[in-house]
């Protein structure tokens, strides 16, 4: 009886009063021992379940604790821009640059945010379209056999390390893109967005597929009964019904795109200047962290500024994730009714 229960054996050392009753083992004593074990096990599992919450809180606390210290030495205005002297025209002007290692360190977050947006928004639009098509194909169009080929393919694509995608773009795709679009910079935001799309297409496709599959069969049958073709059913009935799921997929995809690090670090050119031209070199928040945190002295002004960037990034993705979570749980509740 006692063999298969590891916790029981450790308790049998006799530290606990209930376990010591064992000498005069009766049925009720054994029951009580089992009840105690059950109680302990439940508490252990509940604690393990709480670990995810604990880590989210810890991450937030550490980023906030280190990041907000930046405000102690840096004037908040300097996170937007600074008055600097132009070396060529010798006139003072208000510039937005991130240049922490210079005579007068510049900490404007705007170029980094613009860089992140210039990656995340095009990547989300492109992979939204592709992912929607893939999701619809997987859930509505593909035969079972075809689906069993395409779906694992998507999962394998999602499992390719991002550094590999970055490297492949660096050595071959970037030149190809330059030849097609005749850009002045080989490494630019467009190439970065393309690479990030590869990562988030499988995410969006899977979520869209799940959303479509969650739609009850009666709705499809109703549409067919009214004489709609399969595509009309998809276009006019299923896509509108699954809209909240599709929206959640796009939001989550955008969160992923904002957080993608290695690809953008390798292929966007790393120029922290404020621009909205997708064919210019840019630098995202994630790439800035990856490039600079390794060389910075702990506790320095730049160190705190970098943690502030991390905090901004975390808060952005946190809200995107929460929004998607709420949209999905609403959809589930509505479909169950």
């Amino acid at each position, binding site marked *: 009886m006692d063999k*298969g*229960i590891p916790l029981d054996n450790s308790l049998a050392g006799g530290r606990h009063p209930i376990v010591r009753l064992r000498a005069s083992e009766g049925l009720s004593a054994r029951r009580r021992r*089992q*009840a105690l*074990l*059950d109680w302990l*096990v*439940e508490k252990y*599992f*509940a604690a393990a*379940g*709480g*670990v*995810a*919450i604990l*880590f*989210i809180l810890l*991450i937030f606390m*550490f*980023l906030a604790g*280190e990041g907000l210290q930046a405000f102690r030495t840096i004037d908040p205005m300097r996170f937007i821009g600074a008055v600097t002297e132009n070396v060529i025209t010798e006139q003072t002007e208000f510039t937005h640059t991130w240049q922490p290692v210079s005579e007068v360190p510049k900490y404007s977050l705007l170029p980094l945010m613009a860089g992140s947006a210039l990656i995340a928004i095009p990547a989300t639009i492109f992979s939204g379209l*592709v992912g929607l*098509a*893939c999701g619809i194909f997987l859930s509505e*169009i593909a035969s079972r056999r075809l689906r069993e080929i*395409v779906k694992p393919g*998507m*999962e*394998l*694509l999602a*499992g*390719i*390390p991002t*550094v*590999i995608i*970055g*490297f*492949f773009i*660096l*050595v071959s795709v970037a030149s190809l893109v330059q030849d097609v679009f005749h850009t002045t910079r080989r490494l630019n935001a467009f190439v970065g967005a393309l690479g990030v799309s*590869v990562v988030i*297409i499988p995410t969006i496709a899977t979520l869209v597929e799940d959303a479509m599959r969650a739609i009850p069969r009666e709705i499809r049958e109703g549409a067919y009964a009214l004489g709609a073709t399969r*595509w*009309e059913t998809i276009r006019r009935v299923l896509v509108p019904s699954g809209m909240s799921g599709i929206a959640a997929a796009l939001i*989550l995809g955008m969160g992923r795109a904002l*957080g*993608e*690090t290695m690809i953008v*670090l390798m292929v966007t050119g790393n120029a922290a200047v404020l621009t909205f031209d997708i064919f210019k070199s840019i630098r995202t928040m*994630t790439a800035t*962290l*990856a490039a600079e*945190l*390794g060389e910075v002295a*702990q506790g320095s002004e730049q160190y705190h500024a970098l943690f502030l960037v991390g905090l901004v990034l*975390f808060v952005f*993705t*946190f809200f*995107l*994730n929460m929004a998607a979570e709420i949209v999905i749980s609403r959809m589930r509740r509505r479909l169950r009714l």
Partner: protein
Amino acid sequence: MRFPSKTRSRKIAGAFYEGLCAGIALLTLVALAWLLAGIARGGWGTVTWEFLTQPPDNGMTAGGIFPAIFGTVALTLLMILLSLPLGVSAAIYLTEYAGPGMAARVVRAAVNNLAGVPSIVFGLFGLGFFVLFIGRGLDAFLGEKLLFGQPAMLWAAATLAILVLPVIIVSTEEALHAVPASQREAAYAMGATKWQVLSRVVIPQARSGILTGAILGVARGAGETAPILFTGCAYYLPRLPVAQIPGTPIWMINPLDQFMQLSYHVFIMSTQSHNPTLVRPIVFGTALVLVTLTFLMNLGAILWRRRYRRLREQARG
């Protein structure tokens, strides 16, 4: 008669759009194949037995990648040891104990959120929390000068363990859900307590699903670069991260040492090398090894999962 022709045009339009969706879906597979073929073609000539078993040589412009392979294996092993017990326990809580209440919803939201935290933020957290807070704290407590409070494999593995936690939780949950309710009910009917039902009926049946989760987690962790940038990865390390246990002839992985790692090797050699064209074959070779490792693990997990899903469907009839 206008009706039939209109029906036909509707059907043609439908076929066109459906074909478009199918074409796009197949194009993503073509992209995957192109990527794999490109890496394979570039790395094919480089990957030899010597490349796999020798350390880098001649200022990283020649030689092999054995320390990086060793570091990757050691790191992911340590990671899964830290992550698996925690992830499986959390999944057991979610499926078996939590019920549909508020607590479960909050935990689930936290797990989903953890899955969406940018990998570089994990790197930041690993540096701030594990290396500087816990590591330096341990040093101060033990009166050591600098033993724990520096980047090391242990901290990198701990950081990665948090990152793969959602992967493990989600697949374990799926595996636990797959155990039929009737099995549990039968065990309860025979007077088993909840823990007995779990440890002797539910968990043994979910074992292969849990294994799948572990493999997916390892594949994910092996490919990540950003979280280990500041928590223990080394550009070049002349020795392997191993240590002899004092007084015995046994060598073991030294979790307090730094290490080389495949994905970091790809990154650093392709962007920071002073002679990018000379080392390109090495980068391609390293990339091929890394892709092969993660690809095979993912493929294995997918095929294994498909097999037991089928068995389950058959069992249900």
